[in-house]
């Protein structure tokens, strides 16, 4: 009897909680968090994702949780980091949630104790490499791809793995000279992170660097620029481009082709954490849970046109579908301290100068 009563009681509480907007499966006292969040009234997000792309997410969240307004600020990942540390140092906390593709910078901030520990009910549904100390979470699953111009690059020239890429540049230098691009590793944190990981998985990285040099590769700090140049035909190939943008553009742009490298594909996951000094901590928690929930992930894999990281989500772009294509070759970059190593100035500069000297050697024909 008592057990039944307890069960009924629990169900009642759950039902009432549900009535108040608490998502299914959440602990019952989540309602308190929700209430507090509604009292706070807003959540301030600093994010590297364009506002335009994030619109569907924001609107969905606001309709799911009326009373919590999203103040969404997009800026590039370095700006985010700079602003965050300056604001924390001056006690001027602005951000409640930090959501950036610069995984290393995010982890660094967490390591410095700037993130709030939070046991999200959704955390258990994420792959293990995507959760860090219960303070930061990977939220997306974005591959690093090759891009090419469909009109000007022959089908049999298209490289399908890293070695083929290097070989193509080596053998057909005349055609591709000055027409291959990638991230400027000095300017783009993401680009730098990618090539560091490449070095881990690809033995022939030095040959690729030499090939870049021989082919007089061009470097950019923005994905958009790279996509633009390849799409317009000014360039023919792009390396390590962030796949989420590339795949989305390729759908509308008949000139743009995308390749998921077959030997291994790096996968980036945008890292999110709640600022310890957050002025709206409860709203931040609700947002985080939303992003990590099925509903949020479905949006991410759908209208937002990124890739959902959760494997149990049914959407157009998901980790699952990607993994099906890549299998074991998907190499997600872990959300952990191991990626912070290259934020040490000396290590970073050494890597950069080693890279540059390989490029120079390739250009000189050695």
């Amino acid at each position: 009897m008592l057990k039944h009563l307890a069960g009924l009681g629990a169900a009642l509480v759950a039902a009432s909680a549900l009535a108040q907007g608490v998502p299914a499966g959440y602990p019952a006292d989540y309602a308190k968090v929700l209430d507090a969040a509604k009292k706070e009234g807003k959540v301030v997000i600093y994010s590297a994702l364009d506002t335009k792309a994030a619109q569907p997410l924001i609107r969905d969240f606001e309709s799911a949780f009326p009373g919590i307004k999203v103040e969404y600020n997009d800026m590039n990942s370095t700006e985010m980091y700079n602003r965050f540390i300056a604001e924390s140092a001056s006690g001027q906390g602005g951000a409640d949630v930090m959501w950036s593709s610069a995984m290393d910078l995010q982890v660094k901030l967490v390591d410095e104790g700037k993130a709030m520990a939070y046991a999200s009910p959704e955390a258990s549904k994420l792959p293990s490499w995507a959760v860090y100390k219960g303070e930061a979470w990977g939220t997306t699953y974005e591959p690093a791809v090759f891009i090419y111009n469909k009109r000007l690059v022959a089908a049999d020239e298209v490289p399908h793995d890293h070695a083929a890429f290097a070989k193509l540049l080596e053998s057909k230098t005349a055609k591709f000279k000055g027409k291959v691009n990638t991230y400027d590793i000095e300017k783009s944190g993401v680009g730098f992170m990618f090539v560091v990981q490449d070095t881990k998985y690809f033995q022939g990285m030095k040959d690729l660097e030499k090939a870049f040099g021989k082919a007089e590769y061009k470097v950019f700090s923005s994905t958009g620029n790279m996509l633009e140049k390849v799409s317009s035909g000014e360039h023919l190939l792009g390396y390590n481009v962030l796949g989420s943008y590339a795949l989305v553009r390729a759908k509308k742009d008949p000139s743009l082709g995308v390749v998921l490298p077959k030997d291994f594909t790096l996968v980036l996951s945008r890292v999110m954490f709640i600022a310890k000094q957050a002025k709206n901590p409860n709203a931040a928690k609700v947002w985080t849970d939303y992003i990590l929930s099925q509903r949020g992930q479905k949006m991410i894999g759908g209208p937002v046109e990124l890739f959902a990281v959760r494997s149990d989500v049914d959407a157009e772009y998901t980790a699952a579908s990607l993994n099906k294509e890549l299998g074991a070759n998907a190499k997600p970059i872990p959300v952990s301290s191991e990626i912070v190593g290259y934020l040490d100035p000396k290590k970073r500069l050494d890597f950069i100068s080693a890279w540059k000297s390989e490029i120079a050697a390739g250009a000189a024909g050695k």
Partner: protein
Amino acid sequence: MSTVPAAVAPVAPNTLLARFPRALTILVTASAVLAPLALILYQSFLTAPFFDASKKVGLGAYRFVFADPDFWQAFLNSFTLAVGMTLIAVPLGALLAFVMERTDLPWKRVLEPMILVPSFVSPMVLSFGYVVAAGPVGFYSVWAQDLIGTAPWGIYSIPAMAVIAGLTHVPNVYVYATSALKSLGSDVEEAARTAGASPFRVAATVSLPLIAPALLFSAVLVFFLGFELFGLPLVLGDPEGHLVLSTYLYKLTNKLGVPSYHLMAAVAICIVAVTFPLVLLQRRLLQNARRFATIKGKAGRMKALPLGRWKPLAMALLLAWLFLAVIVPVSGIALRAFVTNWGIGVSLLDAFTLDNFRAVFEEPTHTRAIVNTILIGTIGGAIAVACYTAIGFATHRRNDGWSRFVDYLVLVPRAVPGLLAGLAFLWVFLFVPLLAPLRATLFSMWLAYTVVWLAYGMRLISTSLFQVSTELEEAARTIGASRGRISREITLPLIRHGLLGSWLLVFMIFEREYSTGVYLLAPGNEVIGAELVSLWQGGAIDVVAALSLVNIVLVAIGLAIALRFGVRLRD
């Protein structure tokens, strides 16, 4: 006259209270100028951001910068650009000024505003325009390729950047050259003409040598601007990896993975070390140029030099410059704003769309940027002019030590690259408790703009002030008016028209400003210029094109309204 008793002199106490407004003005100005600079200097001698607990004092930043071959390459590139663009802008600007000011070229009223267009348009926008118009797959390049099989120009090299920079800085020379030419009597030119010289010969041997001080000043100004270039090398230099000092500085934002404010500060101090002497030199040359003009006295009756058979050539020269410096980039932007994508093999008509504009107007950050930009130009510009006027009055016709102090004080912000000035203001607003709540408001952006352009604004105001004859003020003094009253009741009404002109110029400067806001950008105080830099870095080319076009239109509207109300662009 004798029923009114012999009056007592009016009371105008020379007490501390009377001196208060002047003292306050000078104090506020000094703080606004020196605080950011002091922060930058301090930061350059640290090993980490100054608010970082682990910072230490040291010369590490300078050591790093001086040991970096990229820095020296950037320095060399800056120097090359500066020299190149000066060599192009000065002769061209002088020649154009001569043709427009002293000859009987037709359609001058239409042509003149167009000559000044590059000075209204943001360099970011212009450079971007060149990419989409004349880049490797630009509109004109593609058309040329279809027509004649080749597009023999490249815009990503240092020489090309020097040419573009030179062409787009012609207005800077033009303004000073025409001003000086206005004060020449036409008799010297007529004498040469009767002796048989062609108009261009007259220009080269008579008129232009006579305005040498103004030309020298313009040359130093353009050279100085060469070191300040940011938008142009950002857009045109990056593809081939050509760095200049400002883009090298910008690159440092990310080179170490974490912000390297100390390195950036060190580079900024190095830049100031070069630019500040140039600013001082400019000041001296401007005084010379002014003195030279007044020695000549009033201009005689000015008769236009007939061009005769040289007319087609002169017109061709003018139109060629207009085409290269104005039409090419602006048409590029206009076209790109209305297409979804472009390149080899893409038909313009197929790609026509209004989506880009929809993207701009549906996005709160962008609409906010547009509104903010309008506000900062109109209201912000008016308040800035009021501030400049107040400072002008504090130093006008007073040759004491404080005036000289302010004279040099206002030159300081000019020497600091806009990028770093904006960053320094960010720090000031973050860490000064009183100002903190204003950081994310338009006020912080406005303050940074006003301080950065202090020297320019002061020059505008002092030009107006100098046009008020001393005697008008002395007459008021002898009648018994205090300095404050004279400023308010005599000088101010007389410079009203000049102030309106200054407001218009400040409006245009604020509209095209972009580097100062880059680091100051926060949700709430977005402005178009800084947004463009951010968007360009993020690769949103479509939005950049549309927003650029909006920017140009805004400036054009402002200009049209002002000109309609009879405001003159220059004296």
